[in-house]
């Protein structure tokens, strides 16, 4: 598929990675602009995805499969089939107008790009508080959305669902994403250095506990979005996770679901950052 065949394009920049999304369907372009409104960019695209909207509508309940096919990656689920060539940063996607398919393809492509750059996507809410990002991860029901709903006005929400983490300087930065969870609200398009990663648990009081590195790794690996059955990529991801755990404080945050939890996080942050 060529640019001429896909005259409608918009550049969506998530995590500082501008990707041009191209289509021959004006309606789909409008959907892209609405869905990723806060993340549209005028930067030159580093990567390109061409959409072919001829795929029949099928279930998105199937498991996603991501595997190497020669030098390319093949991404498949019932509702989409995509190819991604990391050599030239281009891909093609067959799907219908379903925005959820679009989100899934973008997440997978970003996870592949990030893996090459020492970063990852994480099932986690994240927010900026006092110029630093705090990331809250945990199993479904652990309280990610609850915590974001309780966020006071001084907190900038980056996402309530999928956090975007990549290396920056001696540490890591978290970026806002348009991938919304139960809150149904995209994150803000901004970034900040990560002060801490908290694994959430609800409890009778607010407290922060240390986690041994092995437990921090176990929890981190369980929550990183990772799709490919590929040893090289798994090795890279494992190295990235070890690097993250050795550079960023990873703690367990037990919290009682009321707004005071944010005061607790803020106090911990002040001590942690200046320690």
């Amino acid at each position, binding site marked *: 598929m060529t640019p001429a065949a896909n005259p409608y394009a918009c550049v969506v920049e998530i995590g500082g990675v501008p990707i041009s999304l191209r289509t021959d369907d004006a309606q789909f372009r409008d959907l892209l602009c609405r869905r990723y409104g806060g993340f549209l960019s005028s930067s030159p695209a580093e990567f390109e995805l061409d959409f072919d909207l001829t795929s029949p509508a099928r279930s998105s309940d199937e498991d996603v499969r991501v595997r190497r096919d020669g030098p390319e990656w093949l991404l498949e689920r019932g509702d989409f089939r995509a190819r991604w060539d990391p050599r030239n940063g281009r891909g093609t996607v067959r799907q219908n107008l379903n925005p959820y398919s679009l989100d899934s393809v973008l997440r997978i492509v970003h996870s592949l790009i990030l893996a090459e750059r020492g970063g990852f996507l994480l099932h986690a809410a994240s927010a900026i508080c006092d110029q630093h990002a705090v990331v809250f991860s945990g199993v479904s029901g652990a309280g990610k959305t609850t915590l974001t709903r309780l966020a006071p006005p001084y907190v900038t929400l980056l996402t309530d669902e999928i956090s975007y983490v990549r290396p920056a300087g001696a540490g890591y930065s978290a970026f806002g994403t348009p991938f919304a969870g139960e809150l149904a609200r995209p994150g803000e398009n901004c970034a900040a250095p990560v002060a801490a990663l908290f694994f959430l648990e609800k409890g009778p009081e607010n407290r922060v506990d240390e986690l*041994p*590195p*092995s437990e921090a*790794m*176990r929890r981190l*690996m*369980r929550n990183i979005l*990772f799709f490919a*059955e*590929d*040893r090289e*990529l*798994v*090795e890279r*991801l*494992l*190295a990235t*996770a*070890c690097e993250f*755990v*050795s550079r960023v404080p990873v703690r367990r945050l037990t919290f009682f679901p009321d707004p005071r939890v944010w005061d607790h996080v803020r106090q911990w942050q002040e001590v942690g950052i200046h320690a």
Partner: protein
Amino acid sequence: MPEMYIARSSAIAARMLAGEMMVMNSMDSTFFTLNEVATAIWQAADGSTPLREIVEQRICPEFDVGSEQAQADAEEFVRELSQHGILLVSDRPLRDPALSDPLAPGER
């Protein structure tokens, strides 16, 4: 009793962190952390050294344990990891020592 030879599976990624070995199977994304003894066995699993020899020459002197108990623990550990496809087990050498996969820098 036949000898037991063990080798690290090529589908595995491993990394040391804070003295513990983090091991992940790329086929099913299962993740394990190995304690010090298990790490020593993992590192010695070259496919050509019998488990008995690994236990006698590395585990017993290094961790100050009796050979009978150490051998039983090692066999149990090997069985568990082989069930997850992390270690390959055979009653004969699995590969020529000269061809054995060296440990990557992060696995030492």
